[in-house]
């Protein structure tokens, strides 16, 4: 089976991944990802009907601790690397437009 990761597919995935790709990146990824996915396709030749998926190799699940408050980063430390901040908050462009009401 040959996979064509075409331009449309690259654009769809890039939107999901929040990557604004350039024209040349779209063309390059279309070719490269098609080749890689063709290679990956070999896993579909194996019979895995009676095999459980293995997400990780440890026999541990739902590791819990006592519900006790512990120290955490100060507001100042948490914001220290922020590209933009305002009055102790992360600053981002407006998300709702003026007419969206509420």
């Amino acid at each position, binding site marked *: 089976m040959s996979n064509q990761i075409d331009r449309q597919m690259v654009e769809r995935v890039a939107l999901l991944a929040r*990557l604004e790709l350039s024209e040349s*990146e779209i063309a390059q990824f279309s070719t490269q990802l098609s080749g890689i996915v063709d290679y990956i396709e070999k896993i579909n030749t194996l019979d895995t009907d009676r095999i459980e998926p293995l997400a990780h190799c440890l026999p541990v699940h739902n590791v819990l601790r006592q519900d006790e408050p512990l120290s955490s980063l100060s507001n100042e430390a948490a914001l220290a690397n922020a590209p933009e901040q305002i009055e102790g908050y992360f600053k981002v462009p407006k998300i709702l437009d003026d007419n969206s009401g509420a």
Partner: protein
Amino acid sequence: MSELLTALELRDAIAAKTLSSTEAVRDCLGRIEKYDPELGAYLLTFTEKAMQDAETVDRKIAAGQPVGPLAGVPIAVKDNLCTTFGTTTCGSKILERFAAPFNAHVIERLLAADAVIIGKTNLDEFAMGSSTENSALRKTVNPWDASRVPGGSSGGSAAAVAAGLCAAALGSDTGGSIRQPASFCGVTGLKPTYGRVSRYGLVAYGSSLDQIGPLTRNAADAALLMNIIAGHDPRDSTSVSDVMAKKPDYLAELNQPINALKIAVVPELIAGAEPRIRTAIENALKVYQSLGAERVEITMPHFDYAIAAYYVIATAEASSNLARFDGVHYGHRSAEAGNYIEVYSKSRDEAFGPEVKRRIMLGTFALSSGYYDAYYLKALKVRNLIRQDFVKAFEKADCLMLPVSPTTAFKIGEKTDDPLQMYLADVYTIAVNLAGLPGLSVPCGFDEENLPIGLQIITDAFTEDKLLRIGQMYQNATDWHKQRPEL
């Protein structure tokens, strides 16, 4: 002179006051100043802090105060380990000025052991790569041949250890990123069992695969570092408790050989490597046989599917982990972004390198609606088949031996245009991460161009003590690990 000593020898010399930490650290910084402009192993060195830390250790020793098990020894750490001093860049433009607000667990452990952290080493961006060529910040060359790559992604750590620019280093291994550069640079590298070393403060790439481990001059130094970095940490929920897997003293029985050692080999896997590597591996097996080991031939029917499964699982996890780089909380923000969507998408496009974008795209594709079952879920099932191959192998033998890499260090630029060829270079290392097992790379010879060759030894989960003893048996009988490059 002090650059010729192992970490263990250096520690003992400092403790015995035959050498001061100040001298050792000054030597090390001097060598970095002399050789690193060409080698490019470091992204950052802590010149002043390292000298101050060394003086503190010397003062404590002079005053007869107790010191930690790595007191005064210069150690390098891969730059995807968070430190509150200096930057933590992951070799990426997106984190070029990032100053972490906390130390990684392993950094805390090194500092508690009185180690002197001398600098942060170069890597493929976010540890994605096999040559360190994907670093957006610096080029690292192989100390044995400057026209060749050091391997990756822990290429800076491997080059620094090989060139004597630190006594030992830490790296991380998601698909071979400790073992392969160790092999390319002629040093010893250990990828511990998943869960043995806390990943707290390691910038995540593939969370179910990532593991921190040592790159050192020999197996004894790897044991010394494991004594310091291994053990439970409640801040990483996959870090195992002593109840589940007790942490041994890795140095205690290191020199005791394993009696009647049974070594599994897969002839087809050895046959897949370059001729000089095949010969070196066969010779290493003969050394073990001369020490009383028995060779058992086995098959690993699903080994050949490891790369395909890995590049689904690792990239799926990466696409999720790297969603945190949003141009809001830390890291680069595009100056061109108009609305909030563009804050994400333009910031990420501007500051991630091509390999990181490729893996985010691949992982997002594998997790997307309509493809999840065919790729992601399928890959997890194949992962289980690969683990079962190892379970069967360890019913017949104590360990599995195979090459680390099908080739020795390749030329800079040789594989950069063809990502799939670069991925295929990880053929021997990736299955170990999928199965969560420990793997050790030890130098076992040189090819006709005087480039180091590595032997990979794999044992069952949480048996690093046994794995290191198997490595030590070989290093007690050979001197490949003592060879040093001429700089």
